[in-house]
């Protein structure tokens, strides 16, 4: 895959490439951190038919979606493939007894049989968190197990 890099004087940098299916897409990195998502015409490779301006956060979110956050997507797939296995995303509420305590303290696997496979914090995915991982309010805990196991894990994280 060849990524063409072009300087835009006074604006920033432009990166464009052609996908396997023949579509040209790219991005402009403005000097102040903004990004423009570019989609080119099917027939005329000179003409950009769609420009989506993105703020820094939006660009990061999009990169996450296209990159590491695919772990959640893969889990959902796994869930579909294996009969009887459920993955569930449990938020840590502000009043949760585990806000500020570690993953090891919750003893989820021992108490419910379900496993914590990832934690999503501020849009970033922490895959396979270790027992000393500290929970914070607004974390989203991804749990895999049986339907009963994941429901029990939800209760544990909400009420202790």
């Amino acid at each position: 895959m060849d990524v063409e890099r072009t300087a835009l004087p006074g604006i920033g940098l432009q990166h464009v490439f052609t996908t396997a299916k023949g579509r040209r897409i790219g991005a402009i990195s403005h000097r102040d951190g903004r990004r423009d998502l570019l989609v080119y015409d099917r027939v005329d490779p000179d003409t950009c038919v769609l420009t989506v301006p993105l703020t820094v956060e939006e660009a990061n979110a999009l990169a996450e979606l296209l990159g590491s956050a695919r772990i959640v997507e893969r889990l959902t797939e796994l869930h579909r493939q294996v009969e009887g296995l459920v993955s569930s995303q449990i938020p840590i509420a502000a009043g949760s007894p585990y806000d500020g305590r570690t993953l090891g303290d919750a003893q989820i696997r021992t108490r419910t049989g379900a496993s914590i496979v990832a934690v999503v914090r501020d849009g970033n995915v922490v895959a396979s968190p270790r027992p000393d991982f500290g929970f914070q309010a607004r974390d989203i805990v991804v749990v895999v197990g049986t339907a009963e196991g994941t429901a029990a894990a939800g209760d544990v994280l909400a009420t202790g």
Partner: protein
Amino acid sequence: MTGQLIELGAIILALGLLGAVSVRFSISPIPLYLLAGLAFGSGGILPLTTSEEFVSLGAEVGVILLLFTLGLEYTPDELVATLRTSAPVGLADLALNAAPGAIAAILLGWGPVAAVALAGVTCVTSSGITAKVIGDLGWLGNRETPAVLSVLVFEDLAMAAYLPILTALLAGAGLLGGTLTLLIAAGTISVILFVALRHGTIVERFVASPSQEVLLLKVLGLTVLVAGLAQQLQVSAAVGAFLVGIAVSGPLAHDARQLIAPLRDLFAAVFFVFFGLHTDPTELPPVVGIAALLAVAGILTKSATGWLAARRAGVAATGRLRAGTALVPRGEFNIVIAGLAVTAGGDSRLGPLAAAYVLILAVAGPLLARAAEPFAHAVRMRRSTAGS
């Protein structure tokens, strides 16, 4: 004193209302500001009496800030890279677009100095309006856009060489005196460019401050001071400010641009009014015909430039047409050049001619750009039906 405040407030409020109109219709405010200046000026419908002094100083600061923020847009590396890669197209652009102005001035019998000034007036594309057109029409990602931006950068660089020459010529310096002034100018520019390119960090370290207030005052003070010194050395204040802008780059340039932008908007608007003030509207009708002819020539020559630049970048016909129309708008710097010429005692018809020329092309340019793609489409359709 109270009269001054009333007039000043009225001018700025009027500019604000005109600015609102330009935002509403998504057009450049420059032609509206010029018209306002014409209305306020001598022979206009609302002649100003007391606030001329402030407007005149404000106009000078406006030119300095326009050029300073222009310099901020580019890093020294970008300028060097553009010089290396785009010199052929850039030189073609200068030759094609300076010619109509120079020829017109000579045919009108205005003399060689006016020819140099008018060449500058017809040549420079308004980077402000063009950037807005490219953004508004979603052309930023198009393949011809880097070529268009390079032409703009090249023109801005050329202006750094052109303005001191014009200043020296306008000062009526003889051959010896003129050569001396040009040598001083070249020396000054080389020193500032050398500091900017090799020791830009020194300037940045001097200016940088965590306090926005301190940063604003330092940046503004340094810019106006260097501009004043450049003027003292006959180099033209505008070029001094442009070079300071180039010397400041990186995150500091970003902060400086945000801080200076509101001031620039205010003083640049004052500058356009000032120019309008010094242009007698009754002198407009005799030059409108010439301005229209020059505008038609300017549209054709800029389209040729854009076509060449885009073709060199390997872009097909539609993109070449877009590049050409994007370069058509003229605006702030054409007026800056005409303003220099008029205040230095050049031919007084130069002012109204430049005003009419910019009024036409600042409005026609963005309209042409909007028409470029439908036009290219129509031509393609006609060709395909003619072919079948």
